[in-house]
């Protein structure tokens, strides 16, 4: 028995369930993913959870740790432990499949719903589009394109919680990066997609997405850009047409 075992409460079940407590030996340099892995390998093989790269590149291991959405592979226990306790739950705002694994379909469907995908009109026979890396549009796009779809922002957003149809910070951030992609040809559809009742104007700039994004992306900024764009398009029109 270690002198300081961690008392780790882990959500077991799906939409209904309970927190089960496990005792995990404390080590220096221990991440929350290490803790979850230890539980599943040594204590309870029935625990379900997701991970892949375990080095902070893929975003698969995102979970709610002590109430806050984080990448568990990049969260040191020593940084967030409360006394000797931890609470690990699945990501908020997403249906739970089992234990710590959530159903990400609605997250990615909303990405599609916001027209968060690229469509160009050039073929291999055309010349490359010349995009200046320091053009204003490209810089705006670059600020948001590192998103890997981990779901942390979506899980942290209160508007997502209170408005089930809200497209969410990740989808809107992606839409904004494509709005600033001069090669894309779906700009009018994209504006229409993010203009609805569940679109960019539902955002209250609470800033949780920006606060918690593990890649320091700022969806609040992207959404602010969309708000201005869509409002102008609704009132005066845009270079792609009027809403």
């Amino acid at each position: 028995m270690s002198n300081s075992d961690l008392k780790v409460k882990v959500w077991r079940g799906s939409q209904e369930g309970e927190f089960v407590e496990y005792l995990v030996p404390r080590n220096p340099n221990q991440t929350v993913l290490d803790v979850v892995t230890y539980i599943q390998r040594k204590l309870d093989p029935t625990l379900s959870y997701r991970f892949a790269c375990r080095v902070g590149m893929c975003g698969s291991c995102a979970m709610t740790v002590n109430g806050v959405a984080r990448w568990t592979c990049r969260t040191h226990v020593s940084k967030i432990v409360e006394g000797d306790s931890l609470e690990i739950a699945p990501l908020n705002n997403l249906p739970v499949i089992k234990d710590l694994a959530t159903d990400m379909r609605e997250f990615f469907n909303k990405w599609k719903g916001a027209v968060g995908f690229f469509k160009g009109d050039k073929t291999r026979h055309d010349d490359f589009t010349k995009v200046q890396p320091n053009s204003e549009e490209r810089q705006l796009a670059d600020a948001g394109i590192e998103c890997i779809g981990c779901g942390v922002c979506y899980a942290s957003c209160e508007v997502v919680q209170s408005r089930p149809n809200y497209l969410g910070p990740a989808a809107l951030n992606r839409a904004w990066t494509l709005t600033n992609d001069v090669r894309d040809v779906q700009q009018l559809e994209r504006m229409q997609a993010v203009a609805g009742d569940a679109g960019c104007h539902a955002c209250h700039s609470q800033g949780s997405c920006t606060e918690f994004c593990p890649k320091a992306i700022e969806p609040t900024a992207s959404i602010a850009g969309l708000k201005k764009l869509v409002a102008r398009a609704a009132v005066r029109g845009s270079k792609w047409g009027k809403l």
Partner: protein
Amino acid sequence: MSSRPKLDYRAKTHLSYFAYVCHRFSGLLLACFIPLHFLMLAQSLRGVEGFQKSLTLTDLWVFKFGEWVLVILLAVHLAGGIRLLMIEFGPWKGLRKGWIQLSILFAIACGLLFLYFAN
């Protein structure tokens, strides 16, 4: 057996969210107060004496306290509102946390100024 945990206060204890709550709460209270404020001012239609009579109602301490609270709410809502306008229309410089701190100081200053001038 219980329901799966939901987004709770632990994900909302950051400055930007606090600014949002203050702005929303102050806005709601101000929206409720404004019609009463206009109703009070409309008593001016009764002329100086009639208006004065209605005004003396507000000499009760509870009104004075309410006025102080309202000045602070107004300051909070103004400062929070300017912050939002800067976020939504201004050049992007993050969640304007310096501005939040300034807003809090501004609201305190307004509260103190009110107490100073009213006495």
